[in-house]
């Protein structure tokens, strides 16, 4: 019998990894991710999870150990955050280029300097082009569900790519939420055994991670691009199957009263739930506003996004990351790129805010939407608007 329990989200994520029978965990602690790997270490030490736990000396080593583990065909998990993810950066494109299905929970946190342990999306955006599938969640239940899905997606013979599941630091990792943990038997039935097709094996030797001269590098990268692009079909099928089995359905672009709405607010991550309350209140006042939330950041869901905003005149995008000296936040850039060549041009107003753990309240989102509508009508000399900065 599946029951809903009150549990810290980090602990629930670790329990989900346990239910997925991860075989190797190589990780280094960093706030606000620590509780995830701490609990996994406890599960392994107590004999509740039959896995190798490799306590490494840095995140660079953690990801390097994960490469070897995944290459041997073991189900592999790690978790990190912020500077830890930045330290892993050198190894991340190796994992995806070698097509190794590694699962990583990323507790989204601002990048230094100035030092901040609090949530924003600057870490996940800094690894945007490393070839990993990136899924972002809004609450603890979604984190648990998408960890389970991530293993199935990554290890699928048609995909074989590493997957990051992003959950906002503290806002999600350190809160206690009511979460339905599925039954072990359900997870076993949903998640097939990991069968990496060409594992390291002394009886059938292969060479991995070789070098590619100019004559073959472009072919190698294009093969990888086609793979991550095509992985969307597998991701969609996985979420459909998950919905049928567990009753919770996920989409690359989640819609909230957006069909027919003239003004759409686009958000990502935990702050989206606060934004939804603002949408509710504005709709109660007869304002024609809706919301879309990005779930899948890589591969970017171009078609689904265009569909979701097809009735809108204005899209207001909130980025929790600042692309310094650039065109605004990475999400707004992507949204603009996705819509630029459409026959019908709609206005995209970009906001950057909620940086380094700064909250945006319901009233704040209502204010942002109103300001966004005004800018869409009057225009602005700014590439984007910074939200909530004290002048």
């Amino acid at each position, binding site marked *: 019998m599946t029951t809903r329990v009150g549990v810290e989200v980090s602990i629930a994520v670790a329990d989900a990894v346990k239910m997925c029978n991860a075989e190797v965990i190589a990780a280094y602690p960093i706030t606000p991710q620590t509780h995830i790997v701490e609990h996994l270490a406890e599960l392994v030490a107590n004999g509740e999870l039959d896995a190798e736990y490799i306590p490494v000396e840095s995140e660079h080593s953690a990801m390097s150990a994960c490469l070897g583990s995944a290459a041997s065909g073991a189900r592999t998990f790690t978790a990190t955050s912020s500077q830890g993810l930045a330290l892993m950066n050198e190894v991340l494109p190796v994992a995806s*280029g*070698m*097509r*190794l299905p590694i699962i990583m929970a990323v507790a989204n946190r601002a990048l230094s300097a100035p030092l901040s342990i609090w949530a924003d999306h600057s870490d996940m955006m800094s690894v945007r082009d490393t070839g990993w599938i990136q899924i972002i969640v809004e609450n603890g239940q979604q984190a648990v569900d998408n960890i389970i899905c991530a293993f199935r997606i990554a290890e699928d013979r048609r995909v*074989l790519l590493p997957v990051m599941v992003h959950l906002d630091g503290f806002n999600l990792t350190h809160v206690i939420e009511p979460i339905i943990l599925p039954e072990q038997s359900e997870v076993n039935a949903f998640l097939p055994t990991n069968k990496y*097709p*060409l594992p390291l094996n002394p009886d059938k*030797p*292969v*060479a*991995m991670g*070789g070098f*590619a*001269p100019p*004559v*073959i590098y*472009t*072919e*190698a990268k*294009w*093969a990888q691009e*086609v793979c991550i692009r095509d992985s969307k079909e597998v991701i969609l099928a996985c979420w459909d199957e998950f919905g049928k089995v567990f009753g919770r359905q996920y989409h690359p672009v989640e819609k909230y009263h957006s069909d027919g709405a003239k003004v759409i607010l686009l958000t990502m991550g935990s702050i989206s739930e606060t934004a939804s309350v603002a949408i509710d209140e504005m709709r109660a006042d007869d304002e024609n506003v809706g919301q879309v939330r990005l779930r899948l950041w890589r591969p970017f869901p171009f078609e689904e996004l265009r569909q979701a905003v097809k009735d809108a005149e204005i899209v207001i995008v909130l980025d929790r990351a600042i692309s310094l000296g650039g065109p605004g936040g990475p999400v707004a850039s992507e949204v603009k790129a996705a819509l630029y060549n459409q026959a019908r041009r709609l206005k995209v107003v970009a906001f950057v805010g909620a940086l380094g753990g700064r909250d945006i309240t319901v009233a704040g989102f209502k204010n942002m939407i109103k300001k966004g509508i005004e800018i869409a009508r009057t225009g602005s000399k700014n590439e984007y608007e910074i939200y909530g900065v004290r002048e």
Partner: protein
Amino acid sequence: MAKPESEMTWRDMEIGNIVTEPGSARQYESGTWRSQRPTYDFKKCIKCGICQLFCPEGCIEQNKDGNFEANLFYCKGCGICARECWPRVIKMVEEEEK
């Protein structure tokens, strides 16, 4: 043997570019890196093989006369053999010189 790399399309790439058969590096012509080429005055060669021992590419073999000679398909033209050859058999020349 698989196709030569220059004929492979992106569809031919193995998962993660894994190499499944041994010896594939043999088809890589590192000789294209060369800007200088070793030339030989074999009358002076005492067949000591010191050039072969020092060659970082491992591309020096004995020819049919027993003299040591670099395989120019692989030789990168580093000139270490010429420096180490104390009977002065080997002289490096610019690639464009005949």
